[in-house]
């Protein structure tokens, strides 16, 4: 996978065929997730998508303000899922219609590229929340993790992390 700047504020992502198949599989999983009813999600995932505006018990004088802010955040998070679903469906459609898939190339604006990495990160966080993955888990050699589902999730989180860093590469790595 590569990411190159084609114009100021425009980027081209290129994926080999296996990479493209993996990314499209992830996008399809995300599409299903973005459509899922919050009430049907496991509690940890539901909390992730509802978002908590604050931690701990707020001061009595802040309770009303924070309740309003919580409602604003929950509404914005719900809209975000709809917007991301539209983007994901668009990219999947582009892949299905692409005449060339090796490499598969996608051109994105800066804002779309940010959404792309944020969505890959959504998938990483979904996996972590679903399985309660901890910092200790992330520091272990995945080969030492005996539970297969957990090991596969950690490996997927790692691979997606690599894709995120390659996508942002031009901006986060020094020459």
């Amino acid at each position: 996978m590569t990411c190159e700047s084609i114009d100021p504020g425009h980027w081209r992502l290129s994926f080999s065929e296996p990479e493209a198949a993996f990314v499209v599989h992830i996008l399809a999983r995300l599409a299903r997730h973005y459509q899922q009813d919050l009430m049907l999600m496991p509690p940890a995932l539901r909390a992730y998508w509802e978002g908590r505006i604050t931690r701990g018990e707020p001061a009595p004088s802040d309770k009303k303000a924070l309740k309003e802010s919580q409602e604003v955040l929950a509404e914005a998070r719900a809209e975000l899922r709809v917007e991301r679903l539209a983007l994901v469906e668009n990219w999947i459609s582009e892949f299905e219609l692409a005449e060339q898939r090796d490499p598969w190339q996608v051109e994105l604006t800066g804002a779309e590229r940010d959404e792309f990495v944020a969505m890959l990160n959504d998938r990483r966080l979904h996996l972590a929340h679903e399985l309660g993955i901890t910092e200790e888990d992330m520091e272990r050699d995945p080969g030492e993790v005996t539970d297969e589902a957990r090991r596969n999730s950690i490996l997927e989180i790692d691979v997606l992390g690599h894709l995120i860093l390659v996508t942002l590469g031009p901006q986060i790595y020094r020459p």
Partner: protein
Amino acid sequence: MLQVESMPGVRILTPKRRDIDPSVNPPTVAVAGSATVTPFSPVVRPATAASPAQPATETSPAIVVEEKLKDAFARGWAVIVWNDPVNLMDYVVYVFKTVLKMNEQDASRHMWEVHQKGKSLVARETREKAELIVHRLRGFGLNATMESSP
């Protein structure tokens, strides 16, 4: 097979895997296939004072000062980012630069604070602005909250 060179310690907020010193800037990491990747080219500029090129307004200096004071006193909400086991260190720095318009040094400092102390106060704003920042940070997957700030 992904054509990504091994990047030790790309997992978030875990310096052990990175073999780097937190007191210095993040290290250079080579990425395979980077022949087509342009060198570092920041598009996000550090926050600066108002540009002198801004058009002049007819507002009197006294009103401007009063509005600035009012705005300063209204900035009563702190935005806090909390540590988590999954987000990548370089990704967090990128998000701080993008959302909060921090320069590289400040973004790295806040990222390390999150990692080492478990949280970092990244902005102090009006309630509405703090809500927006929390939403944008959460949109990138960072665990951000807000609380009133004396």
